[in-house]
């Protein structure tokens, strides 16, 4: 059996690549066509890369909530927040740290596993509080959620199997206590 995927890590990857610090921004915007373009343009023009992006409708459907993970020059971050806030369609844009907010993402991981290794796979999934959402005689899809470091750790464990694909939602964030997100 062969499953074709382009989402495989490079052959000779050694360790994790050097990465710039990642910042998590919560952006509350008008739910209109083109808003995402405006925000992406504001980041791209200033050399920031969007690592993760989650957009969903707000409770009031006239608005959307975006959680954006960006990496780039930390000195310029305050400036880019002001630039994004300045956009007419942006209601607010704030940075959240893991101290003042809950950060979660969801992982779907598909790997090849047969009868021999299935029990061990299920134990790993159970350890990370995940569950199996698809099961075939030769493969399995696990779903689990948590903060980014937990997802990274789980993926490291799954790498003992032949991982075919991973899909991560990207971070969603909510401010703790009575703070606004």
């Amino acid at each position, binding site marked *: 059996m062969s499953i074709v995927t382009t989402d495989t890590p490079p052959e000779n990857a050694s360790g994790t690549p050097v990465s710039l610090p990642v910042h998590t921004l919560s952006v509350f*915007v*008008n739910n209109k*066509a*083109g808003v995402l*373009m*405006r925000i992406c*343009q504001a980041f791209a*023009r200033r050399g920031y890369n969007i690592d993760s992006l989650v957009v969903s409708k707000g409770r009031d459907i*006239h*608005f959307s909530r975006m959680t954006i993970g960006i990496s780039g020059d930390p000195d310029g971050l*305050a*400036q880019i927040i*002001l*630039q994004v*806030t*300045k*956009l*007419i*369609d*942006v*209601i*607010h844009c704030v940075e959240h740290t893991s101290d003042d907010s809950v950060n979660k993402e969801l992982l779907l991981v598909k790997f090849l596993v047969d009868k021999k290794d299935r029990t061990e796979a299920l134990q790993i999934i159970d350890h990370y509080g995940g569950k199996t959402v698809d099961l075939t005689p030769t493969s399995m899809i696990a779903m689990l959620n948590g903060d980014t470091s937990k997802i990274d750790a789980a993926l490291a464990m799954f790498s003992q199997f032949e991982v075919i694909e991973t899909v991560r939602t990207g971070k969603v964030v909510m401010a703790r206590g009575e703070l606004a997100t």
Partner: protein
Amino acid sequence: MRNNHFRMSNKQLDGAQALIKTLDDLGIEYIFGYSGGAAIPIFDALVTVKTNIKFVLARHEQGCCHMADGYARATGKPAVVLVTSGPGAGNTITGIMTAQMDSVPMIIICGQQVTWMLGKDAFQEADIFGITIPVVKHNYLVKETDSIPRVIREAHHISTTGRPGPVLVDVPKDISSGLFTGDMDPELDLPGYKPETSYHVDADKIDEALQLIHKAERPLILAGHGAMISGADAELKELAETLHCPVTSTLLGKGVFPEEHELSLGMLGMHGTAYANKAICACDLLINIGSRFDDRIIGQADKFCKDAKIIHIDIDPSEMNKMVRPDIEIVGDAKTSLVEINKRISSLDTDPWLNTIEGWRKKYPLSYRKQGGLRMQQVIDELYQVAGGDAIVSTDVGQHQMWAAQFYKTNASWKWLSSGGAGTMGFGFPAAIGAAFACPDETVISISGDGGFQMTLFELATAALHKLPVKIVVLNNHYLGMVRQWQELFFEDRKSGVDLEGNPDFCKLAAAYGIPSFNIKRPADVRRQLEKAFEITDGPVLIHAECIKHDNVFPMIPAGAALEDMLTEPPKGKLAKPTGST
């Protein structure tokens, strides 16, 4: 009420008519436009709806934008640009960017393909909404006929409030042709836009600013375009005169503080006056009122005012800490802020400081030689003497622009029109046309070089047709002079792409449009020819000055260099190539 009027008149409007009626209700005086297929319904509404709006057919869409820009820079009010889809809309980009970079209000309305053809590469379809996102304050693609009045009112509101800027509205043909059944005076829907907050400035920041001001021995005010836009002229003058504080202005701030005032140091920056730049280096307090600390002002950022305290007043929070880290940030309207500051200022003893500056003024005056051929500086200097500081002066971009900024003193706001941020060649002449429409009773002078003038000279037809009494000054050195200056100073005089051989006979060109012209060849001819040209007031006149080919603008701070590294005269040796900016 407006709505009732239409119901009572029992007349069904289409979207285009609702659009034009809304522009009229908003007090729009001029539309500068160029027609085309997708915009026909809107052009038709210009005929079928009775309004007070005047329509001007330019000769190119870039010309439309610069005319609207000139109109706005001369009045503070927005004009409308109306063009068709695809190439028509595409030709506006440079003009829109020019307005955005200099915070000029403008409403651009584009015709567009019908909605069901969008994204299908239909005839003259272009995603102008997507294309213009980086160069507008905001933009719209209208999808419902009934939303037209709201969108137009929002566009006008966004364009003219807070930090002004261009707003584009893309109107598909089926939307403009559709039957209008909506409200002509709807509520605006802008939950993310609150410009009114800029009229409440933080009292604590004002206190802190006052403490710094009253401790200063060598204060300097930097007046920018923001001070002019907010109408802070009187407050600025009161502040400067009470503190006995010298004032320098940015290129776009020229006039907000009278340049003939004894406290004025003229323009600062790359080609600013030596005494303004020396004052910036030596001051112990810089009060920036509505300038964004452009890279051509600050030079090398980490050396800029490094021993001085800085107060930065700006309506746009994102200008804070962008280029320079101020000691005190006052986010808000310049006039509102100055009113608060002025309530509690007292006089400072700045006599030693003013004496020092007076010494620099004497040692490094602005000057030029009258021997060795005709120089642009002389033409500009004599223009100033003939026309005076109350004329509206529009410039293009390059050497002549910097000399005009130096030698043409501007004594009031809204009199100096120049593309600063974008540095758009071809801006000056159409902008002067826009200003001439806006201010029919004022003298309007367009000063261009031979390069920039040829970029938009097709608007000679517009000026001639409307008999606009613009004084069109073409300072011809047969070169792209500023680039040639850089090549001489930094690239061992290797000239590349700067020789404008093949220039037309500009006087014959004017004649082809029925425009009279005067030719100046010798320094001794300048005054007489200018005076003759200024006698013509029933239409445009072209003044062509044949200037020497090799002349450089000084003072000069090489791009990215520190202000103290200013050159006040031609350097003896070779200079390092500029780094850090352009």
